[in-house]
C-alpha cells in the first residue's frame, strides 16, 4: 500500500512539474518573439511620397493665403477666416508634426505614437476645434455653406482613424504566438499605423487647402458676418 501511494505521489509531483516546465517554456519563447517584434523600426526616407506631398500642400496653402492677402479688400468677411487659416498653416508646421520630422531615420513605435498625438492635440484641437469650428455654426460665411459639412465629416474620419491607430499602438504590450511568416504576411502593425497617421496629416492639409482656395474666389460678401465662439477679430492678427 505504501509503495502504491508513493508511486502515485511521484506521478502527481512530476505531472505538476511537467506542466510547469511546459508553461515556462511557452512564456519564455513568446516573450522573446514579442520583444523582437517590438524592436522593429519603420524607415522614413527623403523620397517618402506622403512626406513630400504634405510639404507641397503646405507650400500651396502659403501661396494661396499670400495671394489673398495681396488682393483682399478691407471690408471683407473673409478676413477673420484668413487669419484663422494662417494660424492653421503654422500649426501644420508645428514641432513634433510631420513637416518637421527627420527623414532618413528609423522610427520606433513610440515615435509614431507621438506623431499621432501631435495630430490629435495640435491639428484637430488647436486648428479645427479652436479656430475653425465656428464654420459649423450659423456664423459660417457665405460661399462656405456647402463646403463645411464635407470638411467636418472628413475630419471626423481622420480623428477616428488616428485614434484607432494610437489604441493599437498602446496595446502593443499584448501578444499572441505568431511566427515570422504569419506576422510578415498578415500585418506589420507599425507600418500600417504610420501610414494611417500620415494619411490623416495629408487629408487635413487638403481640407485647409480647399478652405483657403475658396478665399480667392470672386464671391465676396459686403456685409460683415458676426463671429460666435472662438477668437474675436481683434485678437486674430496677433
Amino acid at each position: 500500500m505504501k509503495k502504491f501511494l508513493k508511486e502515485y505521489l511521484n506521478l502527481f509531483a512530476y505531472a505538476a512539474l511537467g506542466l510547469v516546465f511546459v508553461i515556462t517554456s511557452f512564456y519564455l519563447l513568446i516573450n522573446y518573439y514579442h520583444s523582437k517584434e517590438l524592436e522593429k523600426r519603420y524607415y522614413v526616407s527623403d523620397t517618402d511620397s506622403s512626406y513630400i506631398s504634405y510639404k507641397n500642400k503646405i507650400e500651396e496653402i502659403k501661396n494661396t493665403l499670400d495671394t489673398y492677402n495681396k488682393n483682399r479688400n478691407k471690408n471683407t468677411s473673409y478676413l477673420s477666416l484668413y487669419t484663422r487659416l494662417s494660424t492653421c498653416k503654422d500649426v501644420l508646421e508645428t514641432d513634433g508634426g510631420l513637416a518637421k520630422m527627420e527623414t532618413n531615420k528609423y522610427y520606433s513605435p513610440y515615435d509614431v505614437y507621438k506623431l499621432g498625438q501631435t495630430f490629435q492635440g495640435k491639428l484637430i484641437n488647436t486648428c479645427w476645434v479652436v479656430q475653425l469650428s465656428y464654420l459649423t455654426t450659423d456664423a459660417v460665411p457665405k460661399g462656405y455653406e456647402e463646403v463645411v459639412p464635407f470638411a467636418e465629416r472628413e475630419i471626423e474620419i481622420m480623428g477616428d482613424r488616428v485614434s484607432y491607430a494610437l489604441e493599437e499602438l498602446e496595446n502593443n504590450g499584448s501578444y499572441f504566438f505568431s511566427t515570422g511568416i504569419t506576422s510578415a504576411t498578415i500585418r506589420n502593425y507599425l507600418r500600417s499605423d504610420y501610414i494611417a497617421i500620415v494619411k490623416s496629416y495629408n487629408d487635413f492639409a487638403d481640407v485647409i487647402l480647399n478652405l483657403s482656395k475658396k478665399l480667392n474666389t470672386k464671391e465676396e460678401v459686403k456685409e460683415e458676418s458676426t463671429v460666435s465662439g472662438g477668437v474675436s477679430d481683434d485678437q486674430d492678427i496677433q
Partner: protein
Amino acid sequence: MTKIFNKLFYYIKNLVLPFLMFATIYIVVMMFQRLGKEPFGANFLEFIEVILPYILLIILLLINTFLHQDEVRNNIFYNLTSFLVMLTIFVFCYRALFDKNLILWHKLKYDIDFNYFTDQIAPMKTLLYLLSAANIILIVKGYIKVDDDIKETPVIEPKEENFKPLEEDNFKVLTEDEEEDFGLPKEADTNVTLDIKKDNNTNNNQHKNNKNYYYNNNKNKKNNYYKNNKNNYYKNNNHNNKPKQNNNNQNKPKKTFDFYE
C-alpha cells in the same frame, strides 16, 4: 555533472526568489497608487492575493533547507523547473520596468507598463502554486518509507557444476514436524542465556526442548537454518563468476550449533 547543476539551480533559485518578490511588490504598490487604492488598507486582500504564492514558496524552501529534505533538494527536475520559473518571472518584471518599446511604459508616466504586468499575474500565480504543490508532494513522498526500498542482491540460480553438498557436520535435515517446531520468533530477547547441560543419553528429538539454545547461540549472527545454508552456498559458489581457490580453512563455515553434543 548533475550534482553540480543541481546545486547551481538550487542556490540560484533560493537567492533570486526574494528579489523577484520585492520587484512584484514594488510594481503592485505603484499600480495601486496610480489607481488610488490602498495596498495596506482597504485593498489588502487584493494585494495579498499576488504576494501569497511567494510567501508559501519561501516557507517551503526554508523547510527544505533546514530539515534537509533530500527528496526535493537533490531532485534535478524540480530544481531545473523552479529555475525556469524564476527566469520567466524575471522576464516579466524586467519588461514591465525597463522595456521602452511598450507604449504604456511612456504614457502612464510611472516608467512601468502596468497593463503588461497585470496580464502576467495569473500565469505567475499558477506557476508558483504548482511549484509549491510539487514541493509538498515530494516532501510527503520522502517521509514514506517502504521495505522494498532496500536494494536486493541479485539471485543467481545455482548451477549443478558449482553446487556442492553441504557438510554434514553442521546441519541436519529436519522433517516437516521439526521444521514447524523450529520456527524462530522475529523479536528476540538479547539478554536471555541458558545453561545447557550435556546429557549422555541424548536423543535425536531432544533439540526440541532446546530451541532457545540454538537461537541464542545464533542470534548475533542473524542466522537460521536456511540462511546458514545460503551463506555456505555463496561461499562455495562465487557469484561474481570468478574462479575461487579451495581453501578449506578459510571457507569453512562457522560452526553454529551442534545437534549431538
